[in-house]
């Protein structure tokens, strides 16, 4: 089986000091990979590079074996990649429904939003509200829901737990695991909240100062006290 996403020797930076250095990473279909690390480790830069918002200095990014760098950012959804950016990226001037429609707009015919509303009943209640009227948790649901409306194969999630109550974070994590199990969705999850990320991840990758310092099965990372102390600090 070829990997869904394959990142090789990726170096990204603005000049002499690269933000990411020689990063290698694979995501298999139906796999949840958690990228962990402190603030400034380069996690968001990694996701932004994967979706083409930042140009890499060297290295290759392949989706199903095809060079992703040749694909324009706005064509990424057509190849099955949905990116939920840091800070959620809800278009606050648009309503909930408009945000969701935007997610599936490139598909013809446009998909029904009902499955999304079933997944997030709260969004159905607020469908006429504008983005700026939503709470943080609702915005996160909206951002994920909008990404799912594109019916992706690979979801790039940037800090979904940021600023959310633990209960809501847990709900969102459970939802991701459920989606993976039901639809075979692959997720590349960037998180500072190590515990909740590892609770659903298959693999954990620890990023520090732009380099991958360790990579293990999520279970191993959680169970091995030495690894945990060394890289995750708990």
């Amino acid at each position, binding site marked *: 089986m070829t990997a869904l996403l394959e990142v090789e020797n990726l170096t990204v930076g603005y000049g002499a000091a690269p933000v990411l250095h020689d990063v290698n990473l694979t995501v298999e279909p139906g796999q949840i990979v958690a990228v962990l690390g402190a603030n400034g480790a380069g996690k968001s830069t990694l996701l932004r590079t994967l979706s083409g*918002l930042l140009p890499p200095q060297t290295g290759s990014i392949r989706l199903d074996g095809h060079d992703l760098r040749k694909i324009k*950012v706005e*064509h990424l959804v057509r190849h099955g990649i949905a990116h939920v*950016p840091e800070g959620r990226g809800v278009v606050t001037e648009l309503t909930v429904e408009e945000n969701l429609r*935007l997610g599936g*707009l490139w598909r013809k015919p446009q998909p029904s939003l009902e499955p999304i509303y079933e997944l997030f009943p709260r969004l159905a209640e607020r469908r006429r509200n504008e983005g700026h009227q939503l709470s943080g948790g609702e915005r996160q649901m909206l951002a994920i829901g909008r990404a799912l409306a594109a019916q992706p194969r690979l979801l790039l999630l940037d800090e979904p737990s940021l600023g959310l109550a633990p209960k809501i974070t847990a709900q969102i994590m459970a939802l991701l695991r459920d989606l993976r199990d039901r639809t075979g969705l692959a997720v590349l999850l960037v998180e500072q909240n190590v515990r909740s990320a590892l609770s659903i991840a298959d693999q954990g990758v620890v990023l520090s100062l732009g380099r991958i310092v360790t990579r293990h099965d999520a279970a191993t990372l959680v169970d091995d006290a030495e690894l945990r102390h060394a890289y995750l600090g708990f």
Partner: protein
Amino acid sequence: MDRFVFLTFDGLSRGAVYAAFALALVLIWRAARIVNFAQGAMAVATAYVGYSVADATGSYWLGFLVAVVAGLLLGAGVERVVMRFVDHSSPLNGVVVALGLVLIIQGVLGMIYGNEFRPAEAPLSRDAFEIGGIALLSRYDLFVFGAVGAVVVLLTLLFTRTPTGLRMRAAAFAPDVSRLLGVPVGGMLTLGWALAAGVGSLAGMLVIPTELGLHPTAMDIVFISAFTAAVLGGLDSPIGAVLGGLLVGLLLSYISGYLGATVAPMAVLALLVIVLLSRPDGLFARSKARTA
């Protein structure tokens, strides 16, 4: 009283044109955070094209259509060739480039058509109907209302009811996120400029027969009035632009009617100063407008 009624209708007719022109300014402001100071010059350029076609074919309506289409193309061209490459780290850069375009357009028009006023006939009678002895509206006024009304309705439908409209709004509000969602942001920007310039050209075709005629600088004062209308409406709000346009039209009509036409430009300036200093977010601002 008769005079007041007449001036009111005249003001609404003028105001409808300012509304359309202000709407064009707002369209670009929302899409690109640029006040298109070249819009007046662009509208004049397409009006020259329209009247040339009308003279050559004998059909005003064909000329009108050509002018609007030329506006769409010119708007797209200006965005693709020039504005796309402007560094927007300072809001002044876009302004300066637009002003450079004003010089180019006015220079080229002067070279081709000369710097004299050329007569521009209205296609319909501008004599007002009288109802009960009171002069109300002319056929031309009705045409103006119809054309501007159609534009407002069509734009509203486009932005609220179509996928393209949704894409355009999303691209304007959050370009990076929109690209991740598959919206061709660059294309939407071009489309926004095209639409705005098309609306500007339509407004130009409507207003030029009511003024002194065709001249490279014919839209300078109209631009100032429409800019005032757009600022009055909040610069971010299409509805505000339309209301602002009607208000400015009425005000100018009363001032020209009661105090003399030469006072009108000063009145616009005074109004602009008052609005900018007292309500910089516009009269109809619901929430605080974004800073430029």
